[in-house]
């Protein structure tokens, strides 16, 4: 039996109130979705529940007993175990020592791992394990503490489909044993299949709680957005003939075993979608195009001219801008929004003069208003929500200017409203004659945002689909390497 009741939970960080008055109840044996746009207070609620941070007011009761955890360790010992999007494992020590740190029973842990059909040597350094596997390891570790309440925060984001399925199976098993799961996800399609009930938070208040089922998606989106409307496919301009001009062509690009001869072209004024399962070489492809990694062989042509990148600066000077999947690698987290947006505008160190503050400020102000960046926490980018951070990483190229924007999974872990803003932004770029290469791990978004899509499978372009054929089910078969007629 596990019954969790949260009443009128509130928490403020300085001037920002993350939670105003959240009520939330988990019944024994249920999978409960906790939903909300970025900044709605989900993470704060989870942090309080797991002892990471303290509450200002309100009550939390587990099986009728009021609880107040002061550390994650205490929460774990009392039956509340979280698994976060970024696994809480120490990279520089072995898995075995990590388990010892959390007093996890190794045998139990390994049996859970075997159950997931994953085999890992416990003497491996954690830093060498791939992220998806690491999340499964973190999950197995949480399970071996036999938690009454298992909290899964965005665990399926960017997880390969087979592993996501395993996670779902585990959640269902956990529920059948009479315990409960709190499931946080931005993949709304999952919710109605996996969860029993859902609670939606908006601005730190629970606005809706209801049993999930067919068609809940609509209701979730409505309550998440409040008065805003749900995202519609961005309208596309009719393509004129000049739009057929090719900006970038990639020919027989190879690197190691990951890329085995990729060939495709990006036209001017189009958003080209890239769909692929995790680990098909798409990350390496983007890094090569951004000049971060050198290919073993193959040619890149920008506007018909063959080029070689030896440094990201080369790519940037050819008008290719990269928005990496990991926002942390792109941002200067301790610096202000202003500086982050302006970071790439210094066109080279040979410009000895002082920076022209007026023109810089103008560009930055433009980008902020175009991208609708929330500037309440303007002094340090690390204090922004994920969605706003992503806007800043894109915004810096708006201030700098570009011909081709490489976006690697830009909407991962971002709420519906911000997603729509980002996609309409990408559309604006295309309409202005720029090109966008967009990889997204959420297949349904291809049709929302792109003009055309290529499917990468095992390091090669497996198929190219016109947008009319990019419905979720066709893409799903294509990314699994099934040949499309």
């Amino acid at each position, binding site marked *: 039996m596990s019954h969790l009741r949260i009443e009128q939970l509130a928490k403020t960080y300085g001037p920002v109130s993350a939670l105003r008055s959240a009520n939330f109840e988990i019944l024994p044996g249920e999978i409960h979705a906790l939903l909300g746009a970025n900044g709605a207070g989900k993470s704060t609620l989870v942090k309080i529940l797991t002892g990471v941070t303290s509450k200002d007011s309100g009550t939390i009761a587990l099986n009728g007993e009021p609880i107040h955890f002061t550390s994650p360790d205490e929460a774990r010992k009392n039956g509340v175990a979280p698994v976060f999007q970024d696994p809480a494992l120490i990279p520089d*020590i072995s898995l075995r020592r990590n388990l010892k740190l959390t007093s996890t029973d190794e045998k139990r842990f390994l049996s859970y791992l075997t159950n997931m059909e994953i085999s890992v040597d416990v003497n491996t350094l954690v830093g060498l394990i791939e992220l998806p596997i690491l999340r499964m390891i973190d999950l197995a570790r949480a399970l071996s503490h036999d938690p009454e309440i298992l909290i899964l925060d965005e665990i399926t984001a960017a997880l390969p489909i087979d592993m996501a399925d395993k996670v779902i199976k585990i959640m269902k098993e956990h529920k059948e044993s009479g315990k409960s799961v709190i499931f946080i996800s931005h993949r709304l399609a999952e919710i109605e299949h996996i969860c029993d009930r859902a609670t939606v938070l908006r601005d730190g208040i629970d606005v809706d709680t209801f049993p999930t089922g067919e068609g809940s998606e609509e209701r979730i989106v409505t309550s998440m957005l409040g008065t805003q409307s749900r995202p519609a496919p961005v309208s596309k301009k009719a393509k004129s003939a000049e739009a057929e001009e090719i900006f970038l062509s990639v020919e027989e690009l190879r690197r190691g075993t990951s890329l085995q001869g990729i060939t495709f072209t990006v036209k001017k004024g189009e958003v080209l979608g890239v769909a692929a399962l995790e680990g098909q070489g798409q990350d390496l492809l983007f890094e090569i195009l951004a000049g971060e990694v050198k290919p073993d062989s193959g040619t890149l042509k920008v506007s018909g001219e063959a080029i070689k990148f030896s440094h990201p600066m080369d790519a940037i000077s050819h008008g290719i801008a990269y928005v990496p999947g990991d926002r942390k690698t792109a941002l200067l987290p301790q610096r202000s929004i202003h500086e982050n947006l302006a970071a790439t505008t210094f066109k080279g160190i040979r410009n000895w003069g002082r920076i022209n503050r007026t023109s810089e400020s103008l560009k930055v102000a433009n980008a902020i208003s175009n991208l609708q960046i929330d500037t309440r926490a303007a002094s340090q980018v690390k204090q922004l929500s994920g969605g706003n951070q992503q806007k800043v990483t894109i915004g810096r190229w708006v201030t700098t200017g570009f011909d081709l924007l490489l976006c690697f999974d830009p909407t991962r872990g971002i709420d519906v409203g911000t997603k729509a803003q980002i996609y309409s932004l990408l559309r604006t770029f295309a309409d202005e004659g720029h090109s966008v290469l967009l990889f997204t791990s959420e297949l349904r978004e291809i049709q929302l945002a792109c003009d055309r899509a290529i499917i990468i499978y095992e390091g090669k372009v497996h198929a190219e689909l016109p947008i009319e054929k990019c419905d979720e089910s066709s893409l799903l078969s294509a990314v699994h390497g099934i040949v499309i007629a």
Partner: protein
Amino acid sequence: MMNQLRLRERSWTLGITALFLILGIWRSQQLPHFGSYEIKTIILGAVPIALLAMGQSLIIIGGGINLAIGAEALLINCLTAKFMNHTSFVHSLLIGILGLACSVLVGAITGWVISISGIADIVVTLATSFVIVGLAMVIFPIPGGGANIHFAHLVTGGGKSFVFPLFAIMVPYLVIWVPLYRSRTGISIFAIGSNKDAAFLSGVDVTRTRIKLYAFGGLFAGLSGIALTCVTLSGSAIITIANAATLYSVAASVLGGIALAGGVGGLFGPILASFVIYFIPTIMLGYGIDPAYSQIIQGALTILVVLAGGWLRLRAKRSK
């Protein structure tokens, strides 16, 4: 998948061992006679810096750095030299234990101040280094002092045998480091050095671990101070000694394979590195070369080794 980082650590240890052996053999060739007594002299020369390097390495593994570690050793050197002079063996031993307790306390307070103030380790310990050296000067204004000779023999050994000096390094290594490495505290130290947030989420009490970390660093500094008293049979509160010792301890840590970013390394490499640091000026002196050159060579060598380490890391990353 091969354990690239392990491989890197192993090749580093191999490299520093090779360097240690080459310089050791070189030095032995310089001496007209090379036997137990000469080995003893070499080890005795390296004992204080080796112990200090162990303390510094531990702190760096835990994500910190202690610029006052040389000062801590100096303080204990002065305290013990002052109070052990003309005493019985038991009295000296008790003073030694008190001295260790004192340095552990100083370390713990340092760790506590860093934790509650949130000020960077490098700033806090730079400040404490002045305070501690000042304290040593107040306690022991004029160089001198001594210790019970039988107590000193615990480190130096009475005769020609190099066993006691070797013990002075290996006993702390085996009795403090090895069990610590295996304990939950040890794992927590690696954890906070590697990723503080993940450590916290794994249930590590970061503040308490940091206090323990600096306390252990203090323990090694205290041992180093006592070893210095036993080897030199005197103490002297001179700030340049403390500062040089601190810098040598950092150099030995880096040479010994400790990543300055924290979370990586062990204490065996730094012990060998301390010998390397001891050998370079000694060998130079053996050739009658100006000691100033040995400083240059030592610096160049440190950069070379760190470069080699960086190259190894890069290669490991590429082949992944």
